[in-house]
């Protein structure tokens, strides 16, 4: 190696370091210094070593079976996944939550670093940490190949699956850490996430065990395997993308257009997954994929209605300066800017588009399987979304008229409360006043007129539809003034203002 090549390598290294996300560098430097990381890694390796040693020493004749490799692999894999799913999300989440709770994130906002880079950096650092853990455990896991009963493709595919599960858990932990809540509430959400992780852990271990038992090597040439793998990757990408965009929105300064990353991501996912669902529908001559697509996205958009109604009612000058001046561009931009009116418009439009597309596709491809299921689900979700829109708007009207001191950000709480009242009160009244021994769903169906999820009672659907539509019309009228004012205010910053103030 010449002196020149050493200088060139150092120069390349410095330039590479400059290009890296500063958050990744910071996080990895902290990880290297952290006793917690070193302890976790050493503990994992020790447990794996001890488990392997105990198995080899105590198993006796089992080693002669053609099953030993699989058994040891699942044991080591279970340990790796368990510790990985606990350690990486907890380490990343707790660190971010601690930084989020004081002025550290604020200090980043006044640098040139973007909120997106902060979350990307945290996730990338977690990925590097996971790679480190997997690399350290890889010799143990690959060693099981020599004990027989497991093929190398199974080892690597199952490890890849475990890797994705850990990253998905970490992204969820980053989302929880980004929530603008106190430590107590975050801890509560953290406990909920841990329960979810437990479910994911057992599902992943059970699924991996099944894959390893069947052997993946023989399936690599089959289209069904790649379809399943592709679907798993798509679900992983949607999960991570959704929580990533939500995390970015949550750590953005309040003055920024927080809605953009989330709405853009959901719209993009809606489009891509819709196309994939249609293609699978066509290839299998079955409406089931489209039905699943429309159910999932309508639930997402119904939740988005609650979020939208809690968004701010006026936009600041910082957001205003990015509004396009041209009418058509401004019209499209309106759906992607923070604000209650734009959020409600976007979610409603997406619901109508999803339902309309699913309905029309069913009509135009009547020969496919599961047509009735598709149309049934479309009707069910149309009713549910109509009710939800009504309750959401009712919450906004109630806040404006009766609870003026309540923060706009808590409007969703009023809406949820109203929805709960709508579900419980009519039914309770009916039960107390008119219940008898033969109170069947047909007789009490009328008392479920406030319940968005009661579309199973077919004979009352016209009544439910009428009630939900009336609720939407009434609450829309009550909110019309405010919503129209928001639409009218969606204008770019006048050039004259800037010039005057600059002068």
């Amino acid at each position, binding site marked *: 190696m010449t002196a020149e090549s050493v200088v060139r390598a150092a120069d390349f290294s*410095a*330039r590479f370091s*400059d290009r890296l996300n*500063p958050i990744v*560098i*910071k996080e990895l*430097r*902290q*990880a290297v*210094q*952290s006793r917690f990381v070193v302890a976790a890694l050493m503990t994992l390796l020790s447990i794996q070593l001890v488990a392997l040693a105990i198995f080899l020493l105590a198993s006796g004749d089992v080693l002669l079976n053609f099953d030993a490799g699989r058994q040891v692999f699942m044991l080591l894999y279970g340990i790796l996944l368990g510790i990985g799913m606990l350690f990486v999300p907890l380490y990343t989440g707790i*660190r971010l939550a*601690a*930084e989020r709770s*004081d*002025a*550290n994130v*604020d*200090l*980043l*906002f*006044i*640098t*040139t*670093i973007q909120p997106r880079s902060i979350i990307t950096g945290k996730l990338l650092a977690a990925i590097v940490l996971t790679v480190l853990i997997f690399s350290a455990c890889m010799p143990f896991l690959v060693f099981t190949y020599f004990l027989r009963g497991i093929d190398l493709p199974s080892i690597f595919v199952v490890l890849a699956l475990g890797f994705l599960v850990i990253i998905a858990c970490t992204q969820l932990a980053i989302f929880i850490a980004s929530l603008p809540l106190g430590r107590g509430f975050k801890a509560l959400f953290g406990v909920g996430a841990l329960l979810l992780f437990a479910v994911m852990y057992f599902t992943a271990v059970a699924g991996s065990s099944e894959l390893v038992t069947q052997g993946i090597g023989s399936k690599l040439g089959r289209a069904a395997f790649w379809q399943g793998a592709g679907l798993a990757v798509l679900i992983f990408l949607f999960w991570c993308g959704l929580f990533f965009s939500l995390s970015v929105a949550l750590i953005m*300064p*309040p*003055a920024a257009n927080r809605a953009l990353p989330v709405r853009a991501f959901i719209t993009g996912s809606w489009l891509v997954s819709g196309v994939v669902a249609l293609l699978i529908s066509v290839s299998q001559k079955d409406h089931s994929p489209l039905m699943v697509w429309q159910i999932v996205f309508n639930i997402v958009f119904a939740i988005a209605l609650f979020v939208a109604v809690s968004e701010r009612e006026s936009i*600041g*000058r*910082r957001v205003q*300066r990015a509004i396009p001046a041209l009418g058509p561009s401004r019209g499209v931009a309106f759906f992607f800017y923070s604000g209650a009116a734009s959020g409600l418009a976007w979610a409603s439009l997406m619901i109508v588009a999803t339902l309309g597309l699913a309905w029309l596709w069913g009509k135009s491809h009547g020969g496919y399987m599961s047509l009735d299921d598709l149309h049934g689900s479309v009707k069910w979700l149309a009713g549910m979304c109509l009710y939800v829109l009504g309750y959401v708007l009712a919450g906004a009207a109630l806040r404006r008229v009766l609870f003026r*001191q309540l*923060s706009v950000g808590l409007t969703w709480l009023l809406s949820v409360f109203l929805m709960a009242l709508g579900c419980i009160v009519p039914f309770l009244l009916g039960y107390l006043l008119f219940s008898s021994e033969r109170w069947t769903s047909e007789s009490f169906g009328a008392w479920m007129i406030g319940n968005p999820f009661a579309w199973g009672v077919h004979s009352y659907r016209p009544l439910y539809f009428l009630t939900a539509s009336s609720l939407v019309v009434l609450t829309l009228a009550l909110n019309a003034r405010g919503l129209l004012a928001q639409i009218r205010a969606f204008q770019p*910053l006048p050039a004259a203002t*800037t010039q005057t*103030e*600059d002068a």
Partner: protein
Amino acid sequence: MKVEIVNLKKHFGATHAVNDVSFSFGAGQVVGFVGPNGAGKTTTMRILATLDEPTSGDVLLDGVSVVEEPERARHLVGYVPDSLPTHRDMSVHDYLDFFARAYGLMGAQREQVVESVEEFTNLLGIRDKMLVALSKGMKQRVSLARALLHDPGVLVMDEPAAGLDPRARIELRELLRVLSGQGKAILISSHILTELAEICHAAVIIEHGKILMAGAISDLLSTNVERRTVLIRVLGRQAELYRDLLEMPGIATAQLQGADVAAEINGTDEACSDVLTALVGRGYRVIEFKQQRANLEEIFMTVTKGVVQ
């Protein structure tokens, strides 16, 4: 560098945290921002640092609006918040290097800047120490060093002296003097008013989001409000002077202080002059009539009511 805060308002629902605040200062000036808790100091400073958006009004840094051009404004302002760096498992040098990267500094330039800032803030000797192991004074210096990395023209410091021991406070004061000498415009909030009076060229007193008083420190101290304290010494007749003063209109209190009589006069310089004229008219042979300057603390207590919104 000129900092202009123009009709700044920030409302949180019904609470008017900042209510039509306007003042300006320039390069090399250190301005004290004084007010009781909840007066609107931190909100104003956060707006100046581009962290919050005002309800209306603006802050112009050499004509650059923090509202409409926050990206440009961020290059001009350095912000030291009231909380200290708390990153675990991170050394002083790594912390500064990280922020230098976050400010977009690259390669050799970054290393040079970090080192010079460490040298300026006297952190070179402890650059490899972990942040959690530092004292408050050290952490405050790290915080200041971080704010100086991109060489901003304006420095906004929220309670930088809080919790510091006298030595750390003196060191901070010296650093601020040097920075002011380098032409930086510094806005500093503090509850230690004697400290502010020593280092600030001007002060702004704020309460309930409104400015109660603003100006050069010397002007504030001399133009204080509606009551003056004067020390009067006459030849003989000291007890008589004391009784006369108590009966004289416009005198709030009087008390004997050794050979002098201290009197609190309701009113401004004119009222003092009237008292002196009256004393001479009554035949007193006045040999000393000295107005006692109020300190910033007294002014603060007089003009503020201490009510939190």
